[in-house]
């Protein structure tokens, strides 16, 4: 007989054994990491290329369809990746009751900043 059938659902949940959902998170963190390699390198190279340039040239840069698209992709991948990483940091180092407040803050904060960044980029690209 399958050993898991002998144990009650509660016994399987408490203490040992995973929720069997960890692989999805692990994989998503890797996918976002792979996406961030070219996106961040593009961003750093662009910033270097725009060293000392003024407001207008910066706006013109973001307005180019490719730059705007890459900036939005960067923001989404960055905060997606940050949410995973910071969640692990909070889970590993904060053991007080504040842990849950931090987990919620990390998740919602990353979502909020990604959205704010995307909206700002679209405003520059479409309205600016």
């Amino acid at each position, binding site marked *: 007989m399958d050993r898991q059938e002998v144990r009650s659902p509660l016994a399987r949940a408490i203490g040992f054994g995973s929720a069997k959902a960890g692989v999805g998170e692990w994989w998503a963190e*890797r996918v976002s*990491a*792979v996406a*961030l*390699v070219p996106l*961040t*390198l593009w961003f*750093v190279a662009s*910033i*270097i*290329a*725009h*060293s*000392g340039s003024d*407001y207008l040239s*910066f*706006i013109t840069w*973001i307005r180019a369809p490719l730059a705007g698209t890459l*900036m939005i992709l960067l*923001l989404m991948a*960055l*905060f997606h990746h*940050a949410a995973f*990483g*910071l969640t*692990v*940091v909070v889970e590993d180092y904060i053991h007080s009751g504040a842990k849950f407040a931090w987990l919620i803050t990390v998740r919602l904060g*990353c979502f909020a*900043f990604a959205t*704010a*960044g995307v*909206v*700002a*980029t679209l*405003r*520059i690209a479409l309205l*600016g």
Partner: protein
Amino acid sequence: MKLREADGTAFGSNRPKETTMDHKEDRPRNGSPPSGSAPTAQELKGDIDKGRTGDKVASYDPGAAPLGTDDEAAGTPDTPDRVALAIRQELENGRTSGRAASQNRVGDAGSRRPKSPNIQIYRPQLTSVLSILNRITGTILTACGVILVIWLMAAAAGPGAYAVVQQAIISWPGRIVLLAATFAFFLHLCGGIRHLVWDTVHGFELRTIYISGWTVVGVSIALTAAAWVLSFLMKG
């Protein structure tokens, strides 16, 4: 079968001692051994099994079975004052985590007990330092992401707001933060690529781990320097 016999013997030999402990249930629990008698390791084991040390519920703990007996077998039994010290410390832990013990929470030892992996007694190694740096730089880079969003929002708001943020960035404190952020970025990037290689189950030999570790450090420093030199060259 042989294993079961061995187990049976072990339990059998322990049972009487456990029963002796039951008689001591009524002795005052003020954290010090009963006066006038030399405490033994078995008394401490009894305290552990009664859940008085606070890190376990009251239950027979086979893991505590070798307590004292190994030293006895080796011909160097613990002296009574050593045992008394151990009992005092264990029961002190039990008192500080009394609430945890009363709530039947297992594994929540006293706050004074050092936490594994006892980081304060280990010599830092390249592997451990890079491991924690990957998390620290990741946290720093999230803050940089927030600054990026503020920067974009300022640019979207107009030239005035953009000028304010730009002034802060090119100020000396801003430049130092930016330099640190650049190094944090390259360290996290190279460390992350190292992690992705590990995810393919490659590069786990000790020698390879140290080679890749020092490569991460060297390449990060080189890329940071290159980025800033290029930036100054672009600025003209």
